[in-house]
């Protein structure tokens, strides 16, 4: 999809994301209708079975977010695929994953209050989810520390992997632990004697709709990251010009016109590997407000 499909200049949504958003909204409406009206209550759990159309799907999206974060981190650390877009994807999906993880815990807690009579129990799945949340909140805090972008990206990627490898260990640990404690609180899906056709359909729909929502959120979170890095790069180009003008007679803050009329600063300005992307353009245009080289923009979604 080329950027020309955008209607309003300056809008960050493309046609694809708008279609995706509309589909998601429609899906959510259908899901609510099916979940709250069409599908029947359960024999065992009464009306609260309707939470099954929210809770498992959001848990899956949380795991998906953390999984994407780990895979993107590996892709960033692997020298042959290193690119900041992996770093941005890791950050974006981790944040969306954290959001879904909170939803999972809150909705599960409400459900648990009804089913088990307690808001929280030290069930392996609950403990694992809570630990994952804690670990990835730490990861997001680390991402916000700033500093050299390459350093931050590497640090974050290694942390993401450190966080993620804890998952199997935690999983083993908590299952042994519960085995020891003879804990009888089990995940409830398996206990439903039979799933009604509408229930099954609605549940499947919930996974589809939440995946759409996940994709929409990650795309927009990525757009935010892109805009942040672009703002930083703008500052960077001006900072170099400013810095070099300290040495020359040209006044600081000389406008772009002087870049074409004569060298603002001594020496050719090199192609600069900026924080987020490579800028390989003529020295003059580096200082000038420039149009996007649109043909180089990759296929939008």
């Amino acid at each position, binding site marked *: 999809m080329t950027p020309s499909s955008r209607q309003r200049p300056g809008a960050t949504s493309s046609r694809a994301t708008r279609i995706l958003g509309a589909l998601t909204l429609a899906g959510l409406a259908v899901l609510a209708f099916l979940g709250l009206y069409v599908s029947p209550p359960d024999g065992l759990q009464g009306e609260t079975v309707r939470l099954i159309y929210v809770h498992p799907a959001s848990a899956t999206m949380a795991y998906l977010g953390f999984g994407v974060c780990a895979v993107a981190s590996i892709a960033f650390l692997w020298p042959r695929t290193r690119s900041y877009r992996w770093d941005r994807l890791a950050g974006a999906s981790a944040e969306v994953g954290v959001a879904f993880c909170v939803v999972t815990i809150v909705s599960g807690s409400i459900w648990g209050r009804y089913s088990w009579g307690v808001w929280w129990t030290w069930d392996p799945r609950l403990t694992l989810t809570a630990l994952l949340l804690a670990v990835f909140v730490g990861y997001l805090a680390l991402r916000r520390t700033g500093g050299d972008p390459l350093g931050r990206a590497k640090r974050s990627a290694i942390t993401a992997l450190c966080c993620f490898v804890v998952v199997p260990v935690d999983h083993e640990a908590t299952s042994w632990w519960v085995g020891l404690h003879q804990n009888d609180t089990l995940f409830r899906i398996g206990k439903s004697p039979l799933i009604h056709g509408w229930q099954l359909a609605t549940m499947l729909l919930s996974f589809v709709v939440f995946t759409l929502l996940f994709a929409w959120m990650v795309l927009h979170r990525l757009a935010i990251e892109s805009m942040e890095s672009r703002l930083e790069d703008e500052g*960077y180009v001006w900072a*170099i010009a400013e810095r*070099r003008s300290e*040495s020359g007679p040209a006044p600081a803050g000389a406008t772009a016109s002087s870049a074409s009329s004569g060298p603002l600063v001594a020496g050719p300005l090199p192609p*600069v*590997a900026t924080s987020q992307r490579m800028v390989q353009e003529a020295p003059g245009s580096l200082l000038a407000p420039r149009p996007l080289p649109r043909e180089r923009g990759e296929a939008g979604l």
Partner: protein
Amino acid sequence: MDQVIRLRSAVALVGRFPVLAGVDLDVFGTEIVLLQGANGAGKTSILRACAGLLRVVAGEACVLGVELTEDPRAVRRRVGLLGHATALYDDLTVADNVTFAVRAAGGERSSVRPALDRLGLTGRLPATRVASLSAGQRRRVSLAALVARDPELWLLDEPHAGLDAEHRDLLDGLVRDAVVRGRTVVLASHEHHRAHALAGRIVTVAGGATPPDPAPPGPLPVPGAGAVAAGAVAPGVASEVTSVA
């Protein structure tokens, strides 16, 4: 004469600030080169970039045959940097500190004692904790570690700061000896009289760059500036006047 440092349009960032915004620098073997410029001009950053501590993100940077843009770590063992910070552990003694620095860089323990003696760190001083030393003494401990390691390239950032007259002379002697032994020295200093007498060549740094401008703005204390960034050749020191641009 082999080239020790070659920077071309080198750019380096600290956070998002471009401390180096396009530096060109050539230094050849057994030279003593003085970097001069105002505070914040980028002298320290050039030295740190040459030591492989500050990543060069654009342009070319080659020190001792190592491409810094590819692997800045490879050059570190062969370079000695005397910075503003002395990189000493307060709780260790003078001798322990120098020994650790030398052995960490792959040197021999036997080179420690002569270096301490050379810097006048004798008597009770080697067994004294660094925390109880004066600033000048710490500086000398740091220098002793450098002398004991005897790297191929010496990068000295304000080496005269905090030293008394006697030890400044000692330092100048150390630098000249090092060059005679085939080492190369780059220093940044505000002690113009001393530094000019020592240096074979002067490079002006401003605004994170080395302007090739024959007449840079502001007063230039370079005696007899003829060629670009040319300086007085110190007597008795083999050096070579080269153009910077």
